[in-house]
């Protein structure tokens, strides 16, 4: 739809470089749903698992993935559901139906934030420049989710199977995020794909 613009539509791309040390890819228009509910209540967890096809991760800072659906643990009663583009409305409706009369909240945040993938040979150093959290493999295994900062913007950081990081960045901070990224990766070269 031409009327849609991602949070990162306003950025000025850097000059393209060969063998860039840092590569950024925005996972545009992914569905983002915030889910609240009681993890001790089997009626809640079962119904969610039924709708999503995958159980909610209950251990702190963990995630679950099934097909195009990924779930981040955010706090003991809060999760971020990342679903395929355009399906968030249906997923929200399905959850509301399955969880009717339960104390839950489902909130569509698909326009309020975006998912950005960072990879590249200089990723480790870039993360050290940008995040105070220890992103070393020994502390940040695949599938871990951490809510921290990226420079001075809040970020939810997830380690992907291939060693790259997925970051959830709020829309209003995305211009600042990209300015920082461009600056921090200047010495390594940045490629936006």
């Amino acid at each position, binding site marked *: 739809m031409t009327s849609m613009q991602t949070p990162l539509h306003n950025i000025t791309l850097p000059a393209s470089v060969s063998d860039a040390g840092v590569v950024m890819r925005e996972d545009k228009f992914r569905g983002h749903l915030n889910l609240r509910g009681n993890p001790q209540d089997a009626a809640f967890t079962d119904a969610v698992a039924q709708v999503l096809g995958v159980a909610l991760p209950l251990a702190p800072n963990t995630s679950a993935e099934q097909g195009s659906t990924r779930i981040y643990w955010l706090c003991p009663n809060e999760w971020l559901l990342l679903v395929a583009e355009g399906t968030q409305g249906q997923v929200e409706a399905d959850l509301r139906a399955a969880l009717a009369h339960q104390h839950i909240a489902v909130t569509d945040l698909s326009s309020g934030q975006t998912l950005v993938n960072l990879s590249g040979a200089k990723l480790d150093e870039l993360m050290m420049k940008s995040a105070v959290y220890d992103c070393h493999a020994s502390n940040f295994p695949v599938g871990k989710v951490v809510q921290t900062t990226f420079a001075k913007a809040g970020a939810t950081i997830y380690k992907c199977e291939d060693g790259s990081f997925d970051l959830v960045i709020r829309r209003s901070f995305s211009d600042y995020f990209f300015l920082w990224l461009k*600056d921090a990766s200047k*010495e390594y070269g940045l490629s936006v794909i």
Partner: protein
Amino acid sequence: MSTKQDQCHRLEQGGRIDRSQPLTFTWNGKQYQGYKGDTLASAMLANGIKIVGRSFKYSRPRGIFGHGAEEANALMQLGVGKETIPNPRATQIELFDGLTATATNGWPSADFDLMEWVGKIGGKMMPPGFYYKTFMWPEKMWMTYEKFIRKAAGYGKASLEADPDIYDKLNRHCDVMVVGAGPAGLAAALEAGRAGKRVIIADEQDEFGGSLLASKQTINGQAAAAWAESAAAELAAMDNVLCLSRTTVFGYYDHNFLGALERRTDHEGMTAKSGSRQRIHRIRAHEVVLAAGALERPLVFANNDLPGVMLSGSVATYINRYGVVPGNRCVVMTTNDSGYQTALDITAAGRTVVAIVDTRQQPEGRLIEAARAAGIVIKAGHAVIEAQGSKQVTDALVAPIDAAGEQITGKPVSLSCDLIAVAGGWSPVVHLSCHTGSRPQWNDTIAAFVPGPSVQRQHLAGAVNGEYTTVGALQAGAQMGALAAGSEATTSYDCGDESVGLAQALYLVPHTKPVSRAPKQFVDFQNDVTAAGIELANREGFESIEHVKRYTAMGFGTDQGKTGNINGMAITAKNLGKTIAETGTTIFRPAYTPVTFGAMGGRDIGELLDPARHTAMHPWHVENGALFENVGQWKRPWYYPKAGETMQQALNRECMAVRNSVGILDASTLGKIDIQGRDAREFLNRVYTNAWSKLAPGKCRYGLMLKEDGMVFDDGVTACLDDNHFLMTTTSGGAAAVLSWLEMWHQTEWPELEVYFTSVTDQWATCSFSGPNARKVLAKLCDDVDLSAEAFKFMDWRAGTVAGVKARIFRISFTGELAYEVNVPANQGLYMWQQIVAAGAEFGITPYGTETMHVLRAEKGYIIVGQDTDGSLTPQDCGMHWIVGKNKDFSFLGKRSFTRPDTSREDRKHLVGLKPKDPTVVLPEGAQIVPDPKQPIPMDMLGHVTSSYWSECLGHGIALATVKSGHHKMGDTVYCPLADGRVLAAEICSPVFYDPKGERHND
């Protein structure tokens, strides 16, 4: 002229310099040569440069004194123009080709300084506590003193131009952080690295090895420097070990957090060719091994600041590491065995040791015998009591002293020399340990402070802990490295015989004259603090060492008293009849050595200093010429000037467009909180002053939020989306605080309420358009909502389709006009804005910013929380009694405070309108309000102007103000006396200036 001739003090061979790589440098306008591997200091000494600067207060000539971080004299003005760097120590500047340095002071030059004469005559005018004394009396003389002080004071100058370099920071994490790469640090890192731990080892020098680089010892049969090289190579080859050379750990903070400054390119030139010049590593470590070593202490004797007086260990370092002998005829004064090693090194370098002057009565042992065997004269039980010479040392006055080191016991003799090497013992570098709050402890055996107990995961190894032998440092390092890694040490070390005799604790060397009459005996070179000055301070009643420090300025310099402080404390202790342990130390604070502001700023500068938050429509605002205002971190359009318009003209145009037709505002920045749960309504009842029980789906209501003290904290409109689902809006700047507030009350006080809060501020983009033609604009874009005034009333909301996009339409108004706020998911925010602007074109739809919004709402008397309120106004003070619920089942936050006597009194400051008597006047915001401007000062103060604007549609200035008892003073005249002498009169009136019945927004 050949290089060799130039470098008159350079040895033919030896040292770690590369004689095949000569480098040219300029000092005070004259060219010299040094070698790759030199520091600026070693190259200056090689070239026979004696005077490197002038002292702070007395303008005395000063020379290079140390060889590292302890150097107090050799502060340089490095480079010129925008690249210039003030006050680095020559001892820590690696020489590069083309380096340019000048003395930081000295007028007209460091060699010939007129201020010296002022210093000689005027020294008595600047006793300790001089500043404080001039502050006190006579007051009018301060301006005169200040000119004199400014001329005399200070060292290097910072450039006024922008720094051409960039700086950055890295966040590091490790299992074991090793500070210092001397024998102890290397041994520790080797053990931790071999155990597979994530290790960081940092050292301030260009290569690892520390004291080993200037040592003639062997380690397990290998030359010390060679062992250091192989250890460094082994560490560098480990993937789990990060080796940071040229990196000073300058601060050690709570929870094993350390700051380290890496000088990445300073050794290559003035500016970095690419990347950052310096980098701060912000290190979080599980375990820290401090192996920071020790600094040599000078002795305090008369004229001990003359160029040619140097630390003994530094002389040895210049010889062994840099192949430079700083003098040809040397007197060594020592209180311990380490001076003997220096004397042997000087002899080995082919220069003359005139005598070893040992303050101990009967020194014995390995090194003493070696010196005797080398034919060196040893004068035991003697001290150098005075250095003699005008601009450099020419003689040392040597006298016998008693065993306590307090009395001269015989006639002094003069020894001709050009170098006095002073070995006064060692001070462990306790700084980092002390940064964490740990107080150092005095150790009588080594006559020095060592780090005290720490609450952190900190381990000490080597000289920092008073272990001065190389083998002791290596073994302690290995042990602590293994301990930190949770492993067993893998290596043991043998360095041969390192036995030494007992050192004497001596600080102030006696003179034939009393301290107050003897030639100056310097304690702190950088601030010209003398033993006599400390004595005077003590006599004037300054007994706490912290007071002595501040009164005399001891330890205030860029060297932070690394060499002087212990001597000053010892002198104070002696004057007060206390022990040094009782006297204690001043507090050691970061940074260990100065850190450039550039590095501290890193990349958080310019547009990266603080995040600028943008709405989805931001690019449109930029393209359409908006000027922006900061609201919290948001960039909001302030106003949209057209070519040739003044700000006021633009505001008048924007205001009149809204009043007469239609204007559009980006309201996306308002905080939005999605509230779900069957107790959502009850929760709103408790946090807002008014009642929410009966608000039906499809309806909106304005709410005021109070803190417990009953004062207004935030406001906004909340819509009922569904019975158990609400959308709260907050002020743009208050969004995060409100969400925290709600969560706090829910989580700590009312966890039984079933309600969830989620921030949706960024999810929704909000186009707010208002004016008599607003409905016509909306009608062009929306055909699935009945927009008639009867069906879609003021304070209603409807779900509908606008320009093909599913939207929430709120009929709410902050302008007093008919207004709609169309909310769409922010991905479609820009599109929606463009559609509304296009649809409104036929009505001249006018974008307006926050300034016009402020004018329009002030005409209606609507408050802005944080502008008209300041946390001291109740709803009643604001004239908003109507919004305070009287009959709610449960209390609400702030209600109880209404009955407090101070909150309920009638003469509080009230929010009122002010109409200037002169209609052309706009009262300045912040202006004070008085009842009678003719009253003598101090006048009665009634309050102040909180908001004030020119109202184009009313044709006069309007203002909101807080005025004592203002609600009871309607029609009274009050006055605003201004700083420029004008007095503006105004009449107290209702804050609602425009459409008081609200007919326009209800239309």
